[in-house]
């Protein structure tokens, strides 16, 4: 229950207070267009410049109670309420989570393969390192184009298996996630598996450990910190990737709801509500992976550092005359290659 300590800190309550005050003033300010008009005419009187901001409109920025309202209650035309948002959230969630798991499992298997087969490592690793810094989300329009083409073909229209793959956008969304998640995870797991001291292996060998045992009892644990660093990033980017794919070319999902905000049937309330849901989902996903990290590698410094950060950031506690640690960035980033 040590985590609850953060609620005894004064700063947490101050932060909460700030958030509540901001939400309340948002609610009050945007309850009436006159308030906003007053603000812009006040700015005009004092500075001589009239702000032509879209933000100063009740239509563009719904107040919190309206956003909550569209999520909880169904309007007469049926476009809102729990069922409407669950229908769309379901599609986003399943694509992100399934893509995350499939992509990561493939990446981990690949990393193990490459860590043990030297020629493959030398031939493929530079390519993977390059692929990691390529903007893979940009591939989304291409995948969607391919799906549109395939969905129109007769073979796909008549074959039920092919149709379930390409007829709907679901598989393409997953595919985008798999591609995006694969490279960073694979590189990090690989580097983790390789980050063993020769002396550690020698110790195990001197105790007559088999290669299998070296893998299960040493390499796996050595690889975990970097793996979790990659998984945390992957969790955030998988949600993002699905949302982007849904913006562009599907007819289901929270991203689709966002992209339809300007259309006749949906309005800004739907946009803001789906952003709130996507954000909550992203945070929960990220925290779930962080929780797994805490459970699996409680000894690791990244977990300890996070704990320290939550308990009041001891930045000035410099280690006693130890050499400067390597600039290992928080995320996957530049490998040691």
């Amino acid at each position: 229950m040590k985590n609850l300590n953060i609620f005894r800190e004064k700063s947490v309550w101050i932060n909460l207070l700030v958030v509540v005050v901001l939400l309340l003033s948002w609610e009050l300010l945007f309850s009436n267009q006159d308030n906003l008009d007053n603000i812009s005419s006040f700015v005009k009187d004092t500075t001589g410049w009239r702000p032509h901001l879209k933000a100063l409109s009740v239509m563009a920025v719904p107040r919190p109670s309206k956003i909550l309202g569209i999520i909880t209650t169904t309007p007469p035309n049926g476009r809102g309420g729990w069922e409407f948002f669950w229908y769309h959230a379901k599609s986003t969630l399943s694509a992100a989570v399934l893509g995350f798991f499939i992509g990561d499992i493939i990446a981990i298997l690949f990393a193990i393969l490459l860590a043990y087969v030297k020629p493959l490592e030398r031939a493929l690793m530079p390519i993977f390192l390059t692929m990691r810094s390529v903007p893979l989300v940009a591939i989304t329009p291409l995948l969607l184009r391919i799906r549109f083409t395939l969905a129109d073909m007769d073979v796909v229209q008549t074959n039920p298996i092919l149709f379930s793959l390409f007829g709907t956008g679901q598989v393409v969304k997953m595919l985008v996630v798999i591609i995006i998640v694969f490279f960073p995870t694979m590189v990090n797991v690989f580097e983790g598996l390789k980050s063993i001291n020769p002396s550690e292996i020698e110790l195990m060998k001197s105790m007559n450990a088999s290669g299998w045992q070296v893998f299960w009892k040493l390499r796996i644990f050595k690889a975990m910190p970097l793996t979790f660093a990659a998984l945390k990033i992957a969790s955030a980017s998988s949600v993002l990737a699905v949302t982007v794919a849904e913006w562009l070319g599907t007819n289901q999902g929270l991203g689709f709801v966002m992209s339809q905000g300007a259309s006749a049937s949906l309005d800004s309330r739907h946009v803001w509500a789906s952003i709130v849901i996507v954000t909550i989902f992203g945070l929960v996903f990220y925290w779930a992976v962080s929780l797994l990290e805490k459970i699996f590698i409680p000894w690791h410094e990244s977990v300890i550092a996070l704990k320290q950060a939550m308990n009041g950031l001891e930045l000035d506690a410099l280690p006693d005359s130890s050499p400067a640690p390597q600039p290992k960035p928080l995320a996957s980033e530049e490998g040691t290659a």
Partner: protein
Amino acid sequence: MIVVEKQKRLQKTALNKGLNWLLPVLCMGGLILLWEYWIGDSLKFVLPRPSLIFNQFIQQIHLLLNNAYITIFEAFVGLAIGTVIGVLFSIGFVYSKGFAKSVYPYALILRSLPLMAILPILTSLMGPGYTSKITLIALASFFPVLINMVQGLTAINKTTIELMQSLNASKSEIFWKVRLPSSLPYLFTSLKITGSGAIVAAIISEYMYAVNGLGALMVSFMFGSRLLDLWATLLASTILSLLVYILIVFLEKILIPWGKHIKEG
């Protein structure tokens, strides 16, 4: 004997280095050749031949460049703003615990948000012009810079600071002569992520509310069934982000030649 062995070892490492370049290039080249001649035109509607893509790339180079300028402009302005704010915040973090405590939770939340998802909000606040996209890119590049700079500013030997203090250095002198120079390698580490990240963010933010830029180009090609042009645009954006990465690595080598020593500890 020893000299001969040393020479042998040197030759071996030279060969090794050559292989390190050659193998991936061969592998990649093999894949492309397979794609060109073995797959050929059989999957034309999804995978056009590489030579056709490259040809299209050359033919469309003016269109691609004109749109790439806009993407680059958005990315660089956003990146610059995000980096400056990140650096300023990191200095605040290191020198004021109260500031760090009150800002860190929000920064952490910002980090775990699916940032692209707030683009519709930013657009509704600022209109569909450049401002919303630049703001988004700045937000996206802020956190990596902040975290890496905090690490960089604090990762100094205690003895170095003690030495400076024994030489009667003031706090600002310690900052300008020790903390800042030794944190710059960390800044470049973060720029390597945020640099190509900014290009991606610019492209994605053009998907939805834009008429110009590589992202908008891709979307219009997607809906227009122009597969070859789509592949060419993809090639252009890949080249662009790799160029940005190379530029940052190059700048790091030129601007902070001492970075290597710090990284090696």
